[in-house]
Structure formats: structure tokens, C-alpha cells
């Protein structure tokens, strides 16, 4: 079994699991799903520099280093998605507190199709 | 002079600890580094002292050291014992028990050290404090004699701690 296969399948499984949870009906599992998707994409972005064991990009006398650029990109992506997660948690919480219901579906759009004709 | 010292070192031991940790973090010793560590120790201690308002009583360092050695030894022995229990004793033969340690200690620091010691040593976990802090609830993994356990703890650790935290 190859490392590449492990990493690729991990990305696939994280994506599938994340996607499944994103399709749930409550905010909380959807946010969990988004987190899994974030992991998946971060690992994918990281893997775009290919996989290198034991060659961190800290300059020493070593001759071989892994690709540092995707690491920097993933770092940025992690930070950004942290901010995004915090925000969506807060907005979801606000919506829950206002309506006592943490459904992710939008009642406004639903009623505009039914009630007000 | 004392006031100046107190102002600069609200918790002198903490400052020392921080300086030591700084040196360990650097993984190399040099006078400049040590000085920088002390400076950091002072600054950080000052900055966080607001959350440690009481100035605890003195600590008998020598006794603390010997206490630490005892505990370390107990930890090693305890681990082997527990490992033995884990590997050999069937669940049915296990005799866990709650024991209660009435506390003579009153300083939070001392109680905490006692509770920590209990948890790190033979087959005991300190689980809770009574609602006014006069007793410590301890869970024993396996014992035939709960009262003996209790007296052992009080004698081996609490007695020593009373001498350390002045």
C-alpha cells in the first residue's frame, strides 16, 4: 500500500463524510460537515506539493526539502476557515436564539411559496 | 527594599521557574539567554499576577525536593503495580473503593499538590473535594483495606506537605 493511496483515500473519505453531513438538516451537523470538508481540502492543498517524509522546510545543511509553498497556503487556509467557522457558528447561534430552532432550511423562503399568495 | 522586591517579584518562585523553562526551551545555555529568561520571568509574572492576587506563604524548598523524590519513587513503583493489576487481575477480582481523606491542609496550593500526588501514585485518583474543602474524595483501584490506604496517604504525603507549605 502506498502513502499516496492512503492520503488520497483519506481526502476522499473526509470529503464524502463532510458532504454527507453538509446535507443534514440542522446547523450543527452541517458545520461539522464543513469542518470535515475543510480538512479534506487542506490535506488536498497540502498534497499539491506532493508527499515528502522527513524533510521539513527549515533550512539546515540538508539538501532535500519538502515543498514549502503549499504549507504556507494551507496555513493561510486554516486560519481563514477558522474565522469562517467562528462566524458561521455565531450566526447559526443567533438564528437559533431568535427562532428556537436550529434548522438550516430557511422558513422565509418556504413560506413565500405557500402562505402569501 | 522589601516593597521593591515584592513589587518586582510578586511570585519569585514562578519567576525562577519561568527563567528555567526559558533556558530549557532554548535547549542551550548562555548567560545572555538566562538573563533574558529572568527578564521574561519578571515581565510575565508581573503581567499575570493580577490573577494570582494572594501571596502564598513560604515553601520549604529542601523538604519539597525530598518530597518530590519520594513521589517519583512511588510513581515508578505504583506504575508497575497498576500495570500488573491491569494485565493479570480479572475485572471480577478487582475491589475498587471510595475513600475519604479528612484534610488538615488548608492552603489551596498544598491541597492541590496533595491531590496531584494522590493521583500520580499507587492505584488512587483524587476525584473530588467536599463543598467546604475539608475532605478529599479518592478512588482506589484495588484495595482490601480502605482505611489503611487513607492513613497511608495522610502519613506519607499530607504530613510532609504540612511541613513544606509554611
Amino acid at each position: 500500500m502506498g502513502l499516496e493511496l492512503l492520503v488520497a483515500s483519506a481526502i476522499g473519505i473526509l470529503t464524502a463524510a463532510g458532504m454527507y453531513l453538509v446535507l443534514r438538516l440542522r446547523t450543527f451537523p452541517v458545520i461539522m460537515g464543513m469542518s470535515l470538508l475543510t480538512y479534506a481540502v487542506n490535506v488536498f492543498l497540502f498534497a499539491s506539493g506532493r508527499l515528502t517524509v522527513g524533510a521539513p522546510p527549515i533550512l539546515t545543511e540538508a539538501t532535500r526539502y519538502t515543498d514549502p509553498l503549499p504549507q504556507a497556503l494551507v496555513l493561510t487556509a486554516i486560519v481563514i476557515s477558522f474565522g469562517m467557522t467562528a462566524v458561521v457558528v455565531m450566526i447559526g447561534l443567533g438564528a437559533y436564539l431568535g427562532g428556537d430552532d436550529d434548522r438550516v432550511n430557511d422558513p422565509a423562503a418556504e413560506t413565500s411559496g405557500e402562505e402569501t399568495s | 527594599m522589601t516593597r521593591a522586591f515584592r513589587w518586582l517579584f510578586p511570585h519569585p518562585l514562578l519567576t525562577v521557574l519561568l527563567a528555567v523553562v526559558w533556558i530549557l526551551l532554548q535547549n542551550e545555555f548562555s548567560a545572555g539567554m538566562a538573563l533574558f529568561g529572568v527578564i521574561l520571568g519578571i515581565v510575565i509574572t508581573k503581567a499575570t499576577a493580577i490573577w494570582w492576587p494572594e501571596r502564598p506563604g513560604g515553601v520549604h524548598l529542601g523538604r519539597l525536593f525530598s518530597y518530590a523524590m519520594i513521589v517519583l519513587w512511588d510513581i515508578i513503583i505504583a506504575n508497575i503495580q497498576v500495570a500488573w493489576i491491569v494485565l493479570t487481575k480479572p475485572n471480577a477480582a478487582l475491589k475498587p473503593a471510595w475513600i475519604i481523606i479528612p484534610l488538615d491542609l488548608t492552603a489551596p496550593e498544598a491541597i492541590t499538590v496533595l491531590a496531584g500526588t494522590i493521583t500520580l501514585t499507587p492505584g488512587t485518583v483524587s476525584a473530588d473535594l467536599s463543598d467546604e474543602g475539608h475532605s478529599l474524595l479518592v478512588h482506589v483501584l484495588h484495595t482490601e483495606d480502605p482505611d489503611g490506604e487513607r492513613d497511608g496517604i495522610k502519613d506519607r504525603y499530607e504530613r510532609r506537605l504540612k511541613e513544606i507549605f509554611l
Partner: protein
Amino acid sequence: MSLFLVVALPFLGALLPGLMNNAGRQACAGVTFTVTLAAFIGLLTNLPAVLAGEVVTTGVNWLPSLGMNVNLMLDGLGFFFALLILGIGLLIITYARFYLSRDDNMGEFFTYLLLFQGAMVGIVLSDNILVLLVFWELTSLSSFLLIGYWKHLPEGRQGARMALTVTGMGGLALIGGMLILGNIAGSYDLSVILQSREVIQASPLYLPALILILLGCFTKSAQFPFHFWLPHAMAAPTPVSAYLHSATMVKAGIFLMARLWPVLSGTPEWFVIVTSAGLITMVLGAVIALFKHDLKALLAFSTVSHLGLITMLLGTGTAFGAMAAIFHILNHATFKAALFMSAGIVDHETHTRDIRRLGGLRHLMPITFGIVTLAALSMAGIPLLNGFLSKEMMLEEAHHTVLFGSDWLVPTLAVVGSLFSAAYCFRLISHTFLGPKRDDYPAHPHDPGFGMWGPPALLVVLVVMIGCAPFLAEPFVKIVTASLLGDVAAVPTAHFKIWHGLVPALYMSIAAVIGGLIVLALFKPLLKAWDAAPRPEAKVIFEALIEAAAALSRGLIHGLHNGAFSRYAAIAAVTITAIGYHAWATGTVGAATRVSQSAGPVEIAGWTMLVTATLGLVFLHRNRLLSLILIGIVGLMVSVGFVLFSAPDLAMTQITVEVVTIILLLLALNFLPNRTPVESTVLRRMRDAVVAIAAGLATFAMSYHFLLRDAVAPSISEFHLANSYKGGGGTNVVNVILVDFRGFDTFGEIIVLGIAALLIYALTETLLDGPVRARLLNRKPDQPRAGDMHPMMMVVLTRVLMPLVMLVGFYIFWRGHNEPGGGFIAGLIVSIGVVMQYMASGFNWTSARLRYPYHGVIGAGVLIAGLTGIGSWFVGKPFLTSDFTYVRIPPFEKFELATAALFDLGVFLAVVGAVMLSLESFSRLARRSHMTENEHPMDIDPSREEYDPADPGNPKREGV
């Protein structure tokens, strides 16, 4: 006067009445009249040139790249129509001044009217068909406003919308047709297009163009089957009906057919479509008109019928037909405008337009009676009135026209049309004015003032004049006809005469008039039969169609956008996966260029745990706390993976972010239900699983593909590795990329964090100001809480640990440029240190002692980072250019001073501020009403008893 001015005057003038509304009705009407008169005179100044057969042109570029330029031209045809528009306009304005009541907003009315007038003049003077389209649609819009002028009347609103819809649809078709036409001819200028008859008629696009253009013309001119909107437009005030819906706007379609006659006519398609549409419209309109009881409706359908007549004449494609059409346009405009105004007078005086409630008015309104009689008889085709002349020419033309291989079809239908035309004219006269005087009129009628009857009377004078002395009109009509025909045909030599001898047209005419009288005599039984006969009501059908369209669209849109995020997301996922698969399936797959590295037990075990936790999360996600624990493991394993694959910075970032995220989620979960209920069906879950697995397979395939192949060229990061130390002063290349090579990304990133915190703060404030506040204050925990809010051991440990964490944070920051670490991780670590303190002694106790203005920390962070970047401007370098140096201050070792560190400090501060502000916000939400701040850092402290026996903050009291 320049043609520009003629067109522009009404538009410019349109502002005046609206603005002068407060100056009084007289002023409004006066200024409108003046503007129109000025344009009219301006037009007349061009009369000599037109009479000389010249084409007056002018132009200015508007959108030359498209060929859309404001090119205007004035020839006979344009002059003729412009004359009608402005001339009748003057009469209508006069009439409207007296017609409108005091409640009506006259400024608004005249503004719309002038807008319309300008648009109409624009249509007939346009040399550019795109500009013509602009004016064309403007007439639809202004007509919409005028029909809906009486906003409180539902008929007005519906009529306006119907007119706009139908003519708007035609206008859109016309756009298509015109664009095709222009593309065939290679120019949108009429002067060019009119020269391109052969090219156009030979083009395969001729037929689509023709159909689209005719759609525009037919809808505008109310030709069958688009005739139905016109009667409903009669909800407009009568001056509007008279002006737009009889004299001018409806003639726009006719005008365009006439305008394009040289290039479009003469083909079988043109002939069949136009002639038959005209014929049907003529007959149908006449028949319906007969049975209308509303005066204006009767006149409206008669208009429809006469427009059909004109259309039919244009459709025959002969020069004589065209001349007859022009002549009839002139005549129709005169008698029909007169009739409309008269109908308005009747309505105005009797307060009804229902013929059944009228009769005998000749005694009370003799002047009106005279006007109506002359105009109606002209319309009926009675000799010595102008209607007779053009109708004779029509019958003559019909006599020669062979449609669908039949030489009797057109003549017969023409006679039938004329017959019904005569009948409704006679009915109009007799049922309204003749017969005994009644005593049940809604109001007491009498002739109005001159202001109202003067304009129709003037028109009737024309009716009679032309009718008696046709030679007066003949030269003018011929000039117009000549310009209509262009180079395609010569103007017929026939002279306009009252008496042509005993030609077939005369017999047909006589038959029509006699037949008309007979029909009138048989009106009662005919009406009974008509009322009994089932017939589609166009308005009902139209409304139903529109309602159906609206309902259908509602069904589609609301069905599609039902607010279900899960569906939206599923659609997006399926779309993305499918399109990605399509891209994959249509590409080529090359051989792998990299050798797969073998995985050891550690990797396999790590993978197993990651997968177990992930799948566990899916299957156990309803337990929310457990799912948080599981996601913690996923994060942990990903971090370990980063360590394994040589990314210590990433591992540290991942794990710290992970913990802070979990803390935030725990804070939120405190308010949320602890379990997710089972809501979706098994089938749905299966569907979701299929979507999810497809997405997972796609990302797997893509990842695996790339992992085994090299990039097309060496990565740019080789440069980063080579120059990180030399140019960036750091050996941690990732950190140098973050703060130097790609520092701009990081600048954006900390702003994202800062915004996140501001947003969270703002939302918290908003929630606490709103209705949620009371609920939050009285919130009950969903489960019993344990005692001991601030456990002693935790507090004691924190006192030692928190400073240590701070130290570690500083260390991570300090080393970040050369070793794993950096401002971001350090910021998170310091935040976590503070969080430890919060968890130990509570938020309030902690922040009461030291409350950092976290807003300020964020702001300072961003500002420091930004100003560090700007600093490089002062040495003439771009934003964020870094510099570094090594200094030595005894007794310290040599150390590096880098601007990048300053930038990193900004990052650090922004992170700390953002995390802390967010936590603070959550904590504020969690405050309940009965909570008071704890005085002591720990709840239980036996040592307190010793020095403070009467402790007010007795720790036994919970909730303190």
C-alpha cells in the same frame, strides 16, 4: 429647424408640465401646447424641402461601434406622420385642458403626453432602426403610463399592463427582426437598408426577420390576433384614446410597414401574411364594433378594423394599394380623432358612454351631433366625405387582389367589412343622437364650450374639405406615397376623384352602405344572436394566460427555491461533481511520473484512526458533544499527518486552531440542543450518501492522480527555498513565505480574522439589544449543572501554567522566523493561555481584573501590520518589502531584527484580539439574569475561613 430640435422639443418640454404642476392647469396646458406648437412649426419649416422631394437628414454618433447612431431623416412619409402627430397633438392638448377634471394631476398627464409625442416623432423621423426601436419602446412605456393614468381604476391598471405586455412582446420581436435586418444589410441605417431590397429578400434570414418585424407591427397596430389589447386601452382618459389609440401610436405599426415597404413587400410571404392579417382584422373589428355598447369600445374596434384595412392595402404590395393606404391613414386620422373627442364630450356631459342609455341627444347637443354625424358618415364611406374616397380606392384595390388563388375572397371580405363598418357608423349616429329625448341621462347634457368642440370641429372641416375637393389632398398624398415607394415602384398616375364612373368599386360601396342600413334595421335580433353565440373573450383569455404564466413561474421558482439548504447544497455538489467528471472524461490521462512511497504501520494506523473517527462522526453525529470529540481526533490525526509529512508549522497551527475551534463550538453548544433529531427519511439519507460518495470518489481520484504525477514545470517554491535566508532573513521557509514572499496573503488573512471577531461582536450586541435578550437572561440549562464552578485545583494549576503558556507563546513567536512557529501560532497559544484562566476562575472574574480592549488589540494588530508594510514606502520599496539586520547588545547574543517580525507582531495581536473578542462575545451571551460575579478566583478555599470568618462570598451558595 433642425430635426433634432423637432424630436427633442417634446422630450425637453416634458419636464415642464411636471415641474409646473403647482402653477395651475392653464399653465400646464399652455406650456404643453407651446412646446408642441414650436415643434410643429419647426417641422413645417422643413416643408419646402419635403415638397421639393428632398430628404432632410441629420445625425450624431451615439454608439458607432454598434451602428447605433441618432440619425434622423425627414422625407414625405416621415413628414406626413409627424404632421399628424404634432397637428392632432395640438388639438388633443387643447381638448384635454378642458376634459380633465380638477382632481386629475395635469402636470403628470401632460408630461406623459409629451414623452409620448416625442417618442412618436422620433419613430417617424428615425433614420437608424436601432434608434427607431428606442422610440418605439418609449411609446409603449408612455402609453403604459397614460393608460394607467387613473391609477385607482382597476381597468386602467389592467389595460395598461395588457397593452405593455402585448406591445412589449411585439417590441422585443421587433428588436430581433431589426437586428437581423441590419445584419443582413450591413447597417442599421434605414437609408442603407432601403437600398438593399435584393440582398434582404434573397437572404435566408428574410423570413425570420419579416415575421419578427411584422409581429412588432401587428401588435402595435392591433392586428389580428393581437387586436384585443386596444379596446382595453380605452380605460385611458379620452384624449389619450383619441391621440394614442386612434390617431398616432397604433399607426406606428402601419408606419413601420410603410417605411420598410420597399424592402420587405412584394414577396409572397409578405403578401399572404400582411394581406390576410389585414383582411381578418378589418372584418372582425367591424363586426365586433357593431355590437359594442360602450362608445369608446365601438370606436376602438372600428379603429382596429380600419387599421386592418390599411394593413391589407399595404399587404397587396402594389403602388396603388400603398397610395390608398396613405390616403386612408390621413382620412382615418381626421374622422376618428374627431369621433373620439366627440365620444369624450358625450361622456363628459352625460356621464355615460353606454349607447343603450343614450339616444335623442341631437336635441340637447346639436353641435356635437353635427360633428359626429359628419365624421361617422365619412367613416361609413358616404360620398362627399373623405372616408368615401379612400374606401373606394380600397375596394378598387381589393377587386384586383387574388389571395390563395381566389379572386373573390378579398373583394367579398372587403365588402363585408365595409358593410359592417357602415352599420356601426349608422348605429352610432342613430342610437346616440336620434330617437326621442330621454329623461334618465345620468347628467343633464348640453353642448360643451368651444374649447372642447372646437378641435373635433376643425377636424370635421378637414373631413368635408377633402371629401369635396380631393384634389387638394392629392399632391400631398402623392409626395408621401412617392417617398414610401422609394425606387421600387412609381407613384400611380390615377387622380383622386369623387366620381370614377360606374366601376366595380362603386357597386361594392353601394352594396356596403345598403347592407349597413339593413343590418342596422335588424340590429335587435342580430344582437340577440351575437349575445347568445359563444365567443372567446380576449381579455379573459389574456388575463388567464398571464395568471397561468405567473402561477407557473411561481410554481417553478418557489418549488425550486424552497429554502432547503440541503437541497441547494446537493444540487451544487452534483453539478460540480458532474461537470468535473465531464472535464475528466473528455481529457487524456498520462502515465504516472512519480513512484508511490510505501506506507508503514504508523501511516496505516493513523489512516485507520482518521477514517474511524470520520466515519464515527457520520454515524454518531446526532450526539453533538461526541461529534465534537470525534472531530478533535480527526484534527489530531491530521496534525500528526502534517508532522509525518514534514510540516511542523502546519501541525502546530492545525492543533491550536482545532482547540480554539472546539472551545468556540462548546461555547455555542451550550445554547444549542445537545442532540440532533432524526428528521430525514431513509431514502433521503441514501440519496445524500450517494451524492456524498460521488463527491468523495471525485476528490479521491483527483488527489491520487496528482500525487503520482509531477507538475509541468518546477515549482516556484524552489526560488523560495533558495532565497528565504538570503532575501528574507529566515530559515523557516514557510514562515518567510508567510511574512515576506506572500506577506500580502497574510495581511488579508489577519483581516479576515479581525472581521470575524468584529462580526461576532456586532452580532452579539445586536442580539443583546433585541428580543433575544430577555430569553437569554431567563434561559434555563437543559441539564442540571454540577456544583463547583471554579475548582480549586484548576485555579491553582492555572496560576503556574498560564504564565508558562505565555512564555511558550513568546518563544514560539520569537523563533518563528527560523524554526517552526510564528505570530499566528503564538497568538493562538497566548489566547489559549487566557482561556485557561477563564475556565479556571470564570470569565467575569478574570476580565474584571484585566480587561483588554480587544477591539483595540485587533485594530492595533492590523494597523501595525499595515503600517509595517507602508514603512517600506519611505525607502522607495513596495508595500511589505522586508528588511533585516543582525545586532548584538551585550550581554545578549547576536539576534536578528527584521521588519517581518514587526509584521508578525501585527499578526500576533490581530489573532489574540480576534480570538478573545469572540470568546468575550460568547461569554456575554451566556450571562443569565441571576448571575452575579464571583468575588474569589475559586469557589472552595478552606484557607479563607482562617483570615475571613464572616465570608460574604460563602462558597456554599451556588451561582455566586
